């Protein structure tokens, strides 16, 4: 190919500079990240759905134990905190799968992914912006907000503060479980063109895994089948059996693996 005369200062930059605008930050694999990340984060925090989320998640995670306690189904000696981890992992996982299912598939189906990728937006940035914004959204609405409320609830019912560091570590385990399903759903969104197989596989791993783990306990060494129990044990400062430690490590490794495969596959996707 013959050498080109490339404009040293191109018209777009000259014109923009005249208006006081600077080139956007981020090039190469980070191209467009800031813009996409800001937009994705805005879907969590800058739309009216913000109010819905701020009500739904605490209602679900904090409300259920409160109702049980009010109706006398929870003995007074058992603190609400025990239920927080269980509900946060199960409801959070289901919520994460539902919330993230459209992140990639809908953009592919509607054609907006092709539109975005015709701009100076790197494909890796496209996936990472979704992953990171969903992780932050889930952390805020599913883990932190109900976590703060449960600490207050626990104090009000027991007049004792739950030990903060173990509680935070337990919340970290909840977050790890959510990250696992988030990265899995994003990967499935990259691999498939419709929601059917995505939902079947994601819920299959969650529900099928729980049933399968009853017959094949080895599954518990690899897949996050008992993260509710593990998060509670961590929050209570109890030592973890080897299988649970293995499950934690495996969940983290698989989450990273899913993300890497999603990035790699999306890089070769055609629009």
């Amino acid at each position, binding site marked *: *190919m013959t050498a080109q*005369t490339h404009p040293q200062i191109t018209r777009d930059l000259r014109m*923009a500079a005249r*208006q006081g605008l600077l*080139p956007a*930050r981020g090039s190469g694999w980070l191209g467009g990240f800031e*813009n996409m990340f800001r937009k994705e984060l805005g879907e969590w925090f800058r739309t009216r759905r913000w109010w819905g989320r701020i009500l739904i998640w605490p209602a679900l995670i904090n409300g259920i134990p409160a109702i049980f306690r009010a109706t006398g189904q929870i003995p007074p000696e058992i603190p609400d905190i025990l239920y927080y981890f269980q509900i946060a992992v199960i409801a959070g996982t289901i919520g994460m799968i539902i919330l993230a299912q459209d992140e990639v598939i809908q953009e592919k189906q509607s054609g*907006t992914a092709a539109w975005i990728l015709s701009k*100076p937006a790197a494909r890796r940035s496209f996936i990472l912006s979704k992953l990171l914004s969903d992780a932050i959204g889930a952390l805020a609405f599913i883990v932190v907000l109900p976590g703060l409320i449960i600490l207050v609830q626990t104090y009000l019912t027991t007049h004792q503060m739950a030990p903060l560091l173990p509680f935070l570590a337990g919340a970290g385990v909840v977050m790890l479980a959510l990250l696992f399903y988030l990265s899995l759903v994003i990967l499935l969104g990259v691999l498939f063109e419709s929601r059917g197989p995505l939902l079947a596989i994601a819920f299959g791993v969650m529900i099928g895994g729980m049933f399968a783990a009853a017959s094949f306990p080895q599954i518990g060494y690899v897949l996050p089948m008992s993260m509710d129990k593990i998060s509670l044990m961590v929050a209570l400062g109890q030592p973890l059996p080897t299988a649970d430690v293995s499950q934690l490590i495996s969940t983290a490794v698989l989450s990273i693996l899913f993300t890497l495969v999603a990035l790699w596959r999306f890089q070769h996707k*055609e629009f």
Partner: protein
Amino acid sequence: MDTSNSLVIETQNLSKTYKEAQALTDLSLTVKQNSIFGFLGPNGAGKSTTIKLLLGLIQPSGGRASIFGYDVQRQSVEVRKHVGYLAQDPRYYEHMTARQIIGYTARFFYRGPKDLLEARVQEVIELVGLEDKADRPVRGFSGGERQRLGIAQAQVNYPDLLILDEPAAALDPMGRHDVLEVMERLRKYTTIFYSTHILEDVQRVSDTVAILNRGRLIAEAPIDKLLAGDGGSALYDITLKGEAEAALTGARSRVEGQPWVQHLSMTTDDGQIDWQVSVTDATAAEDLLLRLILEDRSLKVKHFGRKTYNLEEVFLEMIEKENSK
């Protein structure tokens, strides 16, 4: 920088295969700076495939392409920094307003004070005449409004190259007129590469044309050259007035005696004689044809001119010739 001869797009043997189907075969073309390059072809010819390859939305099966010297595969993000693109069927986030869409697009290119970015957004909204609809969600937009929005978002970064895929295909005559007007307005600032099958539009605004058929490039030339006929051959229309039969026969034999004259056909109507002379060497014909006729002073030439084709004739002839191979 010498802008007149700079190449904006250059492809070499660019090919794309989908499973068994060959969508594009060995496409080699060049697009010069500040040209309006019409990329023609029937449906399925490979026009959109070429555009997607240039934007890095699909990967080539063979060959290579560069835009402003950047490799479209390895430096795709760099390429897209200098390009504005309007897709054939543009899709946006339906819940966003036109202003939000353009603002979001602008932030892929620029950062800076919010009011300056908003001023640029307002500028392109006015450029495409969307002031009244700017703050309404895109989901309620008509086809024409979407196309205007498409041009606005493609233009927001003052692109050095504007790539438009069938920009007027889905529009009514008024919408088409508007789009062509915007293109003409932009031609002094930017290079425009656009695909279409509306030949009338191409003839109106393009300066260079490439014709694609079944994934193969069958012609690439400045539009006036393409309309003048292929290569050295040409057709001349001559209207004569002459009383003497002998003078006419003599002129005819002089013309037909030339090695570069392929064919001469004659029609008469009310004392007026029309000749159509097809030649293989247009230069020789320009030089000698009229002189040969006027050697006999009793003949009068009322009209002498090289026949020009319209793009539709050229296009159909080329496609038919190619399809019959």
